[in-house]
């Protein structure tokens, strides 16, 4: 019964989405304020019914209702409850429902937190989001119904959730990622609403900014979790593979980064209007494209869901309608005349422009690398593949180009600045950064030029920020007062840029300094790696809820002091019989120790073992967390709320006059 309620709720949600997509938009067109005022209520109704549907599916999973096909093929009675719940989105149909749930969450959030927005704008924005929801809900109902039953022959038990997905990181990774992906639909909806209204002004940018920041923050966290998961779960210490599915989440992130910066220029200076709108469309289009690539089967990837050309066709048509439609609208409605606002070559505007160029090139690089095999194939030129070397070759110089400019950014002034002033401001940071770049890598022999470069660039970035902060604090009467005067927007920028610096150092240091040993070890053996002695004590048999495992006990000492006891496992999952490596990790701010079990060697109890020493690997994820915290902080800026009220009152006047 419960699955039928879920199915029915999904159909009602579809109807609500249809009404939301049509009626308020019609109202906005005809100036009918009754029709427009329906939008917030419909948005909340949409959330309620998609929510009911999602809870019904979750209930079916938690209660082991194997008469539901999806439950039978992705969950079993031995699975711990938390993974039964995570299994809801560990498959195509369920994750699509999660997509719809999160989209309706964002829609309802816009409805609830934008009461200050002119009704005309709000109704258009919600209509656009309703139209997107309509597309996804019909996708779910037509091609991928999660509630399909296996009746009358319901199996006694289900098959296993992919053991790779049975992991705490994977419980929250997809929801976070989708929060980011789908969150860009808000920026998209605002852009479309602005194009429809024909008013691309600073207020539009101001409304979009907090939403874009929050979506970007979630996406950063989602990508970070995915990378962290790959690191500890896949068992060979890698953290990024340039896999098409990873690229699918990375492209909206890159475009979103450009969007955040371009929105700043549009809001503060009324610049780059058409460009920013295009970026908003582009960012969300990449989210949709990512969905298409992951689910259509046009590209092969290990963590693609089961694919089906009919589904691919549906998403492609949807993609064509949404992206093609919005780009057509853009072509007709975007302001064709470049804005009359001028700025000098040496100014914050041109630095933001450089940021946009770098991130756009980065996005297109990833897009091209991901699609290249497909393009060549479609042209009938054969089959090719693009590997990590291509991406690395492009990304390293791009980032090396970006960071020097990034150090200038916070110090720079709008409109017109002077190179002499920059020189005065940043001479000391530049010298100190060079010194850091030369000396800090000395801590780790042998001296590594890449690390030196990374340290140079990041300390330039950090010291530039510090210089600017100091300047601001100094101009206040007391440091406490100066701190209090910093806006959340500024603090957010500070934190996010610091995070980026940490990320750069972490990535380069890990790639350059990591040491790994693959060796045969018998119980009783000891091995020294990077000053740590790994002592292999024994192998014991352990039993988990739905697996049995060989667990190695390894004690790590340094200079005779016990540092860590590590227990990597080799698991065999009972339902599917698949074998998984569970790595043991001793995490630290400055280094990770990582042990993974290979295969047993011979019959004497020896095992192939993989020992890793990974310096600063945490900095990468810490950096991503800082970036997300920064974006959240910036979104808290009171400015967004206060100025919305101002716009609100003038919007009312326009409406009454109409």
């Amino acid at each position, binding site marked *: 019964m419960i699955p039928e309620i879920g199915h029915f709720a999904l159909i009602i949600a579809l109807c609500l989405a249809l009404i939301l997509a049509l009626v308020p938009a019609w109202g906005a067109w005809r100036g009918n304020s009754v029709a427009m005022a329906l939008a917030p209520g419909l948005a909340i109704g949409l959330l309620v019914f998609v929510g009911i549907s999602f809870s019904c599916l979750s209930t079916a999973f938690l209660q082991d209702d194997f008469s539901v096909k999806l439950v039978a093929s992705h969950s079993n009675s031995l699975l711990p409850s938390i993974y039964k719940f995570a299994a809801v989105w560990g498959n195509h149909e369920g994750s699509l429902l999660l997509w719809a749930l999160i989209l309706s969450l964002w829609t309802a959030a816009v409805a609830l937190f934008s009461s200050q927005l002119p009704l005309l704008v709000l109704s258009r924005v919600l209509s656009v989001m309703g139209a997107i929801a309509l597309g996804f809900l019909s996708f779910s109902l037509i091609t991928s119904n999660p509630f399909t039953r296996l009746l009358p022959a319901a199996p006694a038990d289900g098959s296993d959730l992919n053991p790779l997905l049975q992991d705490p990181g994977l419980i929250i990774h997809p929801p976070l990622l989708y929060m980011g992906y789908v969150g860009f639909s808000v920026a998209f909806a605002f852009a479309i609403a602005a194009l429809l209204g024909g008013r691309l002004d600073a207020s539009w940018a101001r409304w979009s900014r907090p939403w874009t920041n929050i979506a970007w923050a979630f996406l950063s966290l989602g990508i970070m979790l995915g990378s962290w998961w790959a690191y500890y779960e896949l068992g060979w210490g890698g953290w990024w593979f340039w896999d098409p599915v990873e690229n699918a989440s990375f492209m909206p992130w890159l475009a979103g980064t450009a969007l955040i910066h371009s929105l700043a220029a549009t809001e503060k200076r009324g610049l780059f209007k058409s460009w920013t709108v295009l970026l908003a469309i582009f960012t969300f*289009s990449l989210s949709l494209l990512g969905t298409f690539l992951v689910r259509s089967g046009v590209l092969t990837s290990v963590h693609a869901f089961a694919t089906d050309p009919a589904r*691919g066709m549906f998403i492609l048509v949807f*993609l064509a309608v949404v992206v093609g439609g919005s780009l057509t609208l853009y072509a*007709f409605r975007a302001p*064709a005349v470049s804005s009359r606002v001028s700025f000098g070559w040496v100014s914050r505007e041109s630095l933001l422009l450089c940021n946009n160029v770098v991130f756009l090139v980065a996005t297109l690089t990833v897009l091209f690398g991901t699609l290249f095999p497909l393009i060549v194939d*479609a042209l009938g030129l*054969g089959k090719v*593949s693009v590997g990590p070397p291509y991406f690395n070759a492009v990304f390293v110089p791009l980032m090396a180009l970006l960071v020097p400019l990034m150090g200038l950014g916070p110090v720079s002034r709008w409109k017109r600045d002077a190179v002499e002033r920059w020189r005065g401001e940043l001479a000391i940071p530049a010298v100190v950064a060079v010194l850091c770049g030369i000396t800090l890598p000395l801590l780790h022999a042998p001296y590594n030029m890449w690390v030196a470069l990374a340290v140079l660039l990041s300390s330039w970035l950090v010291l530039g920020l510090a210089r600017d902060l100091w300047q601001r604090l100094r101009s206040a009467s007391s440091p406490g007062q100066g701190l209090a005067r910093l806006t959340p927007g500024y603090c957010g920028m500070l934190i996010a840029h610091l995070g980026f610096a940490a990320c750069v150092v972490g990535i380069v240091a890990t790639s350059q300094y990591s040491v790994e040993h693959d060796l045969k070890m018998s119980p009783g053996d000891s091995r020294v790696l990077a000053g740590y002695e790994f002592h292999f004590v024994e192998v014991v048999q352990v039993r988990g809820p739905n697996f049995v495992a060989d667990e190695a006990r390894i004690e790590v000492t340094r200079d005779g002091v016990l540092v860590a006891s590590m227990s990597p496992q080799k698991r065999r999952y009972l339902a599917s019989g698949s074998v998984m490596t569970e790595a043991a990790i001793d995490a630290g701010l400055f280094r990770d120790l990582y042990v993974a079990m290979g295969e047993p060697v011979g019959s004497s109890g020896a095992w192939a073992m993989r020992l890793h020493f990974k310096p600063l690997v945490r900095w990468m994820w810490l950096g991503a967390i800082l970036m997300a915290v920064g974006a959240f902080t910036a979104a808290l800026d009171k400015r967004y709320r206060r100025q919305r009220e101002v716009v609100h009152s003038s919007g009312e006047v326009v409406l009454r006059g109409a």
Partner: protein
Amino acid sequence: MGPRLKLFLPLILFALLAITLFRGLGLDPNKMPSALIGRPLPEFNLPALNQTGMVSAADVTGQPALLNVWATWCVSCRVEHPYLKQLAQQGIPIFGLNYKDEDRAAQRWLEELGDPYRFNIADREGTLGLDMGVYGAPETYLLDAAGVVRYRHAGVVDEKVWQTILEPLYLELSKGNGAP
């Protein structure tokens, strides 16, 4: 109309992309007729992994066999690996083509995960892969006793692929060869 026309550019680019994606839908990335089918492997003379000396096309002839293209940077190869070991245990001869890889990494991989291969061709620069038209790793070629390519499978070889596609062809070739 000049400046307005410029704004149509994104739309046009997207239309081109959509056409490509549409064509892509009709293509199966795992199904690739190879120009090599019915022809012998291209000549090569490359170092062997894990042993001194060079190997050439003549070394893979003599019996029907699988030629598996793999690399340590390829995530799917890791998925495929345990099944290749099963096949090797059943006595199916498998040759490896270690594609665009570092020898050291490849050797570590084999030590850690086990080695199902008779030997491995170290195609460090991907030259042989280029001649063969390798799309990406993993890929598996079915060769007959004379070293002629009979079938090519792109993607992971698992139980289903083996039992439905490769095994029937393999058995047929073995029969013709007089082997069991």
